[in-house]
């Protein structure tokens, strides 16, 4: 047993560090440091930089533009990206629809869609959940009725993250109303410019229109935009959900945030003449979180090692989703506790690009409670943590 990096891996780590130091745009770095939300252009610009280097899609097969990295290299890359504060490419194209196209799409679809995803020319969003199909996704009701060479799509998709930017949406739609609920579903790629599509924002509790509802009113979709066989979409969707769990635990990001939390605590007066890192209760809470993340990190490394010797990622990856999101949410709680009264101001102007007024509280303090609110989504999305526990109960424990 050996968890240490080889000399070659260490050399790779240096290469990644040098690349990030030289190429990660300083404007984006500055925005992230100031808690300014990134815009579409920022994501696109950064992914194009990665693409030029050939590093945009570490998890794709080499034939389509992947890196051919080992599991250890992917891990090193994710870690260095997080340390540099560099965001991962938006996942909807890169990590969600692309693997389905690669695995189940035909050659024409691969040539048509994959290069633009890799180069960040096209922005994708996800069309899975519906108002009445959340945890029970297979009960979805959006219909696609075949009319000649088209499907006519009707229905509503919801929780479309950043759908306001999207050029394309991948959807699960019902193509057979008579079949058992998992068996009448197809996987369609739909151009967001198609007539009959309406996007309406959903405002979240922190005031951001981060998600949307997408309404389909007799939207005509060419049959050639269907992935794989008709009525086999559920199988493809499940593959998407179990295969693309790379970095779902978010360990590199959580480790970085934990270090920021410690630095913040060391700089925060406790009101009694010391700082908060010297407060035994707060220090204990930080330590518990650090230990949790360490255990999670090794659970993830074990999963990566298993994949690297050819095993498919199993339902054990549900552990990574549950513990990873809970650890991230715990860090949110501690950051909010650290900010104390200064987490209460709602001052969005403070996080706008170019704001040069006086900050309320320490840098970032005023965002902590909002971040805590917003990140409650983590245990809900991507298959809620309750659904993950169902998977563990059934698929791992055989209950």
């Amino acid at each position, binding site marked *: 047993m050996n968890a240490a990096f080889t000399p070659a891996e260490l050399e790779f780590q240096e290469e990644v560090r040098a690349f990030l130091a030289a190429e990660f745009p300083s404007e984006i770095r500055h925005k992230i440091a100031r808690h300014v939300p990134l815009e579409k252009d920022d994501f696109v610009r950064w992914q194009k930089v990665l693409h030029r280097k050939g590093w945009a899609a570490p998890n794709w097969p080499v034939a389509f533009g992947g890196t051919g990295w080992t599991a250890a290299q992917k891990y090193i890359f994710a870690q260095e990206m997080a340390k540099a504060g560099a965001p991962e490419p938006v996942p909807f194209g890169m990590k969600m629809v692309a693997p389905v196209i690669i695995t189940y799409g035909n050659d024409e679809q691969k040539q048509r869609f994959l290069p633009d995803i890799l180069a960040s020319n096209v922005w994708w969003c996800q069309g899975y*959940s519906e108002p*009445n199909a*959340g*945890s*029970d996704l297979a*009960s979805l009701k959006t219909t696609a009725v075949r009319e000649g060479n088209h499907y006519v799509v009707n229905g509503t998709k*919801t*929780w479309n993250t950043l759908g306001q930017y999207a050029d394309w949406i991948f959807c699960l739609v019902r193509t057979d109303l008579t079949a058992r609920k998992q068996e009448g579903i197809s996987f369609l790629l739909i151009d967001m410019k198609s007539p009959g599509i309406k996007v309406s924002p*959903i*405002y*979240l*509790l*922190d*005031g951001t229109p981060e*998600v949307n509802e997408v309404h389909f009113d007799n939207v005509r979709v060419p049959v050639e935009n269907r992935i794989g066989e008709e009525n086999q979409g559920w199988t493809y969707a499940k593959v998407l959900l179990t295969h693309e769990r790379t970095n779902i635990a978010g360990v590199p990001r959580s480790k970085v945030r934990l270090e920021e939390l410690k630095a913040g605590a060391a700089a*925060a*007066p*406790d*009101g*009694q*003449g010391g700082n908060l890192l010297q407060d035994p*209760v*707060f220090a204990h809470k930080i330590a518990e979180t650090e230990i949790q993340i360490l255990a999670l990190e090794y659970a993830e490394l074990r999963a990566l090692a298993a994949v690297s010797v050819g095993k498919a990622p199993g339902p054990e990856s549900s552990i990574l989703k549950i513990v990873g999101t809970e650890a991230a949410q715990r860090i949110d*709680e501690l950051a*909010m*506790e650290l900010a*104390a*009264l*200064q*987490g*209460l*101001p*709602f*001052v969005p102007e403070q996080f706008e690009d170019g704001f040069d007024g*006086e900050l*309320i*509280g320490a840098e970032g303090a005023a965002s902590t*409670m*909002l971040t*805590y*609110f917003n990140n*409650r*989504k983590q*245990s*809900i*999305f991507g298959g*809620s*943590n*309750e659904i993950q*526990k169902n998977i563990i109960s059934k698929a791992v424990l055989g209950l």
Partner: protein
Amino acid sequence: MDFSFSDEQQMLQESVQKFVHRHYAFDARRAILASAAGYSAEHWALFAELGWLTVPFSEADGGFGGLATDLMVLMEEFGKALVVEPFVAGVVLGGGLVSALGSPAQKEHLLPELMAGSLQLACALYEEQGRYNLASVATTAQVSGSHFLVNGTKVLVLNGPVADALLVSVRTAGSERDVEGISVVMIASNTPGIVRRDYTTVDGHRAAQIRFDNVQVPVSALLGQQGAALPALQQSVDRATLCVCAEAVGALDMLLHKTVEYSKTRQQFGAPIGSFQALQHRMADMFIECELARSIVMMAAMTLDADVPEAQKQRAVSAAKSRVGKAARKVGQEAVQLHGGIGMTDELDVSHYFKRVTAIDAMFGNADFHTARFARL
């Protein structure tokens, strides 16, 4: 032993219930939040007319009686409707300081106006370096002739943007965390040298960060004995703390109630999600938290009304705030989680209750602060 409400308390409860039923629907509240002042002047006038603004004050001060148990009854109903009018910040805390420290002349000047709803007060007590420690006062007031010169910065001044006057804790002697040497001065909000940064809090209340730059205050603006204000500050903050705890009890009950109702109607996997045992147990845990929070807040209110040493009262309030903070975390998170995505949205009231109980945990000392204070006392 008798845990039932008095006739007067029942009448108070019913009168608040009637008000919120008539005036405080979710959309009506939303309109109040979006208004310039952040609260409704008509509602405020009605509060005065109904006598609610007299509840925090003793009969000697011209009030309803000043019982913490009365305040608890009122605040729980406010919590159920997420009332944003600045009752705690202005009347309980501001009025409490005037009542505890003011001279007969000052009281006579201020309290009737406060109870009539024509005076808005705000208290500037907390400083960045002090975290939750009321004795950590770096804002100075130096005597200069017949005036004080006030310098320093106060954070999270609740009701600061609309207050006519500010009650400010200042250091008139000693060094930063000394318990002696702290005074309270009343400063008109339009006094030159006051630099206010107004904002809305994450839960929709109004507050300000306020800097005092050589603000000239007549010595007559001093409330109480110079340098000896800390006990009164702590006492007033404790009563305000009890109030937000009772408010949280009302809000937490709504989170539980709304979650249970939603679980009975939301269908997934061909059944209401409330029929799943895993979720039933979690709602049972939420119920337990709500009941414990309610119980400990009643304990604290009764202790404040009892003839017991001050330290025992402080201990009771800290116990309540600590436990309520814990309940706010647990019940708030579970309510959102069990609702799923819809619980994260601005359009559903659940997220607003969640934000309010989270904000309550952070103010007047969070759960950790009060657990430590409880242990110390």
